[in-house]
């Protein structure tokens, strides 16, 4: 028994497939899933892992690590590691998702951290959630009775997918759309004070001098993801470059949204979000 830990060791199962994993929920309806395990380590400065009575470890389930490319969608297996996403995913993985994955943890941690795990645990700054939200991704959640799809918009603002007992997030489906202009900025990691952390994500496409599509969100630690659809709607269809007035009004809208947050943004966060918004708006005609 590891020192400082009491009680009998927890039972750990290592199924080799999704089917085996789901079947294990029958006798163990409240078993906890364990994927990469990188979330617990930021919370516990201890040499032992605190597991519940029964754990299902997905590290051997290869069918949960597949990447499937289709005409309309890209499917990422839930247990796909972030480095696999970056290496195996290839050009079909949207750039914004790669930008977000690349700055999560260290390379070694990214060999453990999984796509589903990142969505099911509260990361430093939502991590993959904001880009997936902008991309309109869907999450497939399965249990023994069947499956359901959860859109990114249905995920709570804090970016966590909450699984019920017996459920597994098996894949993330990303619509294959063309977003030539990609903006992703993240300030902060686990060593950064909370009031200095933020992430800003943006996607845009232009056509014939007009903004054909535009999506923007920012993510603050205590407030979660904020997406201003009204602004996206107003700017879509506008002629580029945007005028100074249009940009100023857009920034004002973002500022308004910041002001409505239940947990106010810090001065630093507000300044950065507004500055980043201005920066994005001035680059919309750069395609």
């Amino acid at each position, binding site marked *: 028994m590891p*020192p*400082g830990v009491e009680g009998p060791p927890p039972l750990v199962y290592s199924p080799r497939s999704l089917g085996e994993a789901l079947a294990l929920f029958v006798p163990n309806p409240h078993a906890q899933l364990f994927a990469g395990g990188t979330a617990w380590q930021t919370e516990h*400065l201890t040499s032992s892992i605190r597991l519940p009575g029964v754990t299902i470890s997905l590290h051997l389930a290869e069918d949960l690590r597949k990447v499937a490319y289709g005409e309309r969608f890209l499917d990422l297996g839930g247990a796909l590691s972030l480095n696999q996403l970056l290496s195996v995913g290839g050009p079909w993985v949207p750039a914004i998702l790669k930008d977000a994955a690349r700055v999560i943890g260290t390379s070694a941690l990214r060999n453990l951290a999984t796509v589903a795990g990142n969505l099911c645990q509260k990361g430093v700054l939502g991590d993959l959630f904001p880009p997936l939200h902008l991309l309109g991704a869907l999450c497939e959640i399965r249990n023994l009775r069947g499956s359901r799809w959860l859109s990114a918009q249905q995920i709570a603002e804090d970016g966590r997918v909450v699984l019920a007992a017996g459920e597994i997030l098996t894949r993330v489906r990303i619509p294959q759309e063309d977003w030539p202009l990609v903006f992703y*900025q993240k*300030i902060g990691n*686990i*060593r*950064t*004070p909370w009031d*200095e952390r933020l992430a800003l994500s943006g996607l845009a496409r232009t056509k014939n001098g007009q903004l054909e599509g535009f999506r923007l969100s920012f993510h603050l630690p205590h407030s979660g993801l904020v997406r201003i659809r009204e602004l996206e709607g107003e700017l879509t269809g506008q002629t580029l470059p945007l005028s100074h007035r249009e940009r*100023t009004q857009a920034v004002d809208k973002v500022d308004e949204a910041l002001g409505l947050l239940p947990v106010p943004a810090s*001065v*630093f966060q507000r*300044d*950065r979000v507004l*500055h*980043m918004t201005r*920066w994005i708006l*001035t680059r919309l005609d750069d395609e």
Partner: protein
Amino acid sequence: MAARKKQPVQDPHFSPDPDLFRPPASKVWAGVIVRSRTPHARIVGVVHPPLPAGWALVLPADIPGNPTFQVFRGRFPVLGDDEAQYIGEPLALVAGPVEDEVRQWADKVRFVTRNLSLDEFAEASPHLRRKTITGGDKAAALDGVHGTMEVEGVYSSGPQDHGHLDPVEVLARVTPQVVAVRIKTQWPAHVVNSVARVLDRDPNEVKVLATVSSGTANSQVWYPSLLAVHAALLSRAANRAVSLKLTKEEEFLYSPKRPEARTLLRTILAPDGRILSLQADLVVQAGAYGVLEDELLDRAVVGILAPYKLGHFVVHAHVETSHTPPRGPVGGMGEGLGLFALESHVHDLCRALGQDPAQWRSEQTLTKDSRTFSNLPLKADSPLKSLVPQLAKSSDYSRKHAAYELLQERIDRFQDEALPLRGIGLAAGFQGNGFLAGGTSPVNIEGRLDPDGRLSLYIPIVTANNRSVQLWKESAAAILQIPVDDVRICPVFTGDHPTGGPSISSRAFEIVPKLLLQTCEGIAQKRFRQPLPITVRKVYRRNKGPAWDNDEFTGQPFLSFSWGAAVAEVELVPLLAEIRIRKISLLVDAGPRIDDASARNALTEGVQMAVGWAITESIHWEKLAISHESFLRYRLPGPRELPPLDIQFYEGPKETPPRGLGSLGANVVAPALLSAIRQAVGPDLKSIPVSRKMLDEALRYHEAFLYPER
């Protein structure tokens, strides 16, 4: 307690049994330090759960020898006895078979205390140590009353952690015959003396296996010796080997940090830029007990006074002690604190004068036939006279500085996002080699040529520098004309001399090569005339020169000076409120280099230290303890802050010996960085580290021009 007068001698023939320093894990117990939870309290008693059978508990009354720990002139209790002086002060020690269980038990120990005022200091603690140094030409200060200019500024620098990956771990094993200590330390002799003194043992019985430390900037110096003493006390009490390991958090919260410093500088300048009068008020925070305060304070003062011509000067310097953990020589022994303030002030002088900072420095540095601050005549121009202009030219400093200054004058520069927010800073300075207060600090080397033709060298310098070790071997092999593989660098188990200083770079580069040469030549001379084995010992003692007087501040302060100048170019990224360092250029005069790669490595370490000190590493105090948040957030510079480095060496006369440069990089780069940041961001930044929030505030001020409608 018997007085111990025997001095430790080198014991190269000590061949320990393999288990002595590496006993089987099953035979080693874990030691834990029980620490004070209050910043200042009278200790009345101790309450703890029943001690499990066989465990060892050491309280101050259990110390067999001298209960004080000594570092040069500083001393403090090995275990707080009568009073606790800071949160985290060791008050007791406990050892048992399983570390986690020992920690859990230690957490339940409670000292019965009576809180004392935070303004009082126990008799054993040094009071606020003050000194005033005056010098120069008073008459010169009165010259040119008309047309003079006065410039004043307050410059602050924050604390810094040593930042090493591995916390210190000590293994001690005390038997009636020997006290064995295995420890990562630069200063084995100090470990020997400290352990012998506290355990009341003959120093010859204390054997230290110093495992390699990393780099030349290993900054812990005396701290490992204190832990060695604790481990030895536990081993003695437990009658078995004890391993004392700090957790990373424990080490961060309680190990010595670079001292905070705050300096007010006020200079009166002649129109041509000469400093007619300099007044400085320097405060260095030393924490509890003021360990190494003499050295730190005096070196900080030297940092202010050494580089430039001064008409008259008055420096009021004092060490503040406080009920916080003792500070230490992280990133250098103290001159960097003074240099930071001085060079930052020169930035302000030059702005006030409208002069190019490179030109100012070149004109105001000491020249031949002038006298130093300590009243010694100079036989040649200060190296800065050549270094500064050469570096300014190679880095294109003056042109860029002028261009960025013009940009500074454009108050609308923040309106044009195409204009980069850049700055370039220059600073010059030195590293003092050797110790001011360290006495004669001899070093000795022993070489022994055995009948099998193999050479054993006992060099009491602890280094991980594979290249230095290889060079030592190659030099020895060349002199004795034996294969390099037949040369062994052997561990020295007892250190060499009680006052032998730590393995700082100056020793490794300045003293060892010379002594090594003499040792091997001595053997070569005796070879073929005397039977083998032949043993030769050579001792280095500091050259006689004008003795340094700490009180009068006269004489020769250091063994030697290494000089350097740095140019740093930065860009402010408003999007992220972040400083990107575009380039750092260094030009260094530290004599000929024994190994170019090692020299570059040492300077690179110093640069990284400076970047951390100036930008990324911050420590905050909460109620006289380092905040937990600081521990979680502490960040060494990452790749975004570490730019391409251009390191050049000034090629002076080859007759001069090589000199150390372990802290030179940090000393000159930190003020250069701040100067550059101030040019990019705004003149009001006068303290380091420069945090993101400070940058954001500066940006917000400027964005008032950019977006007046807000």
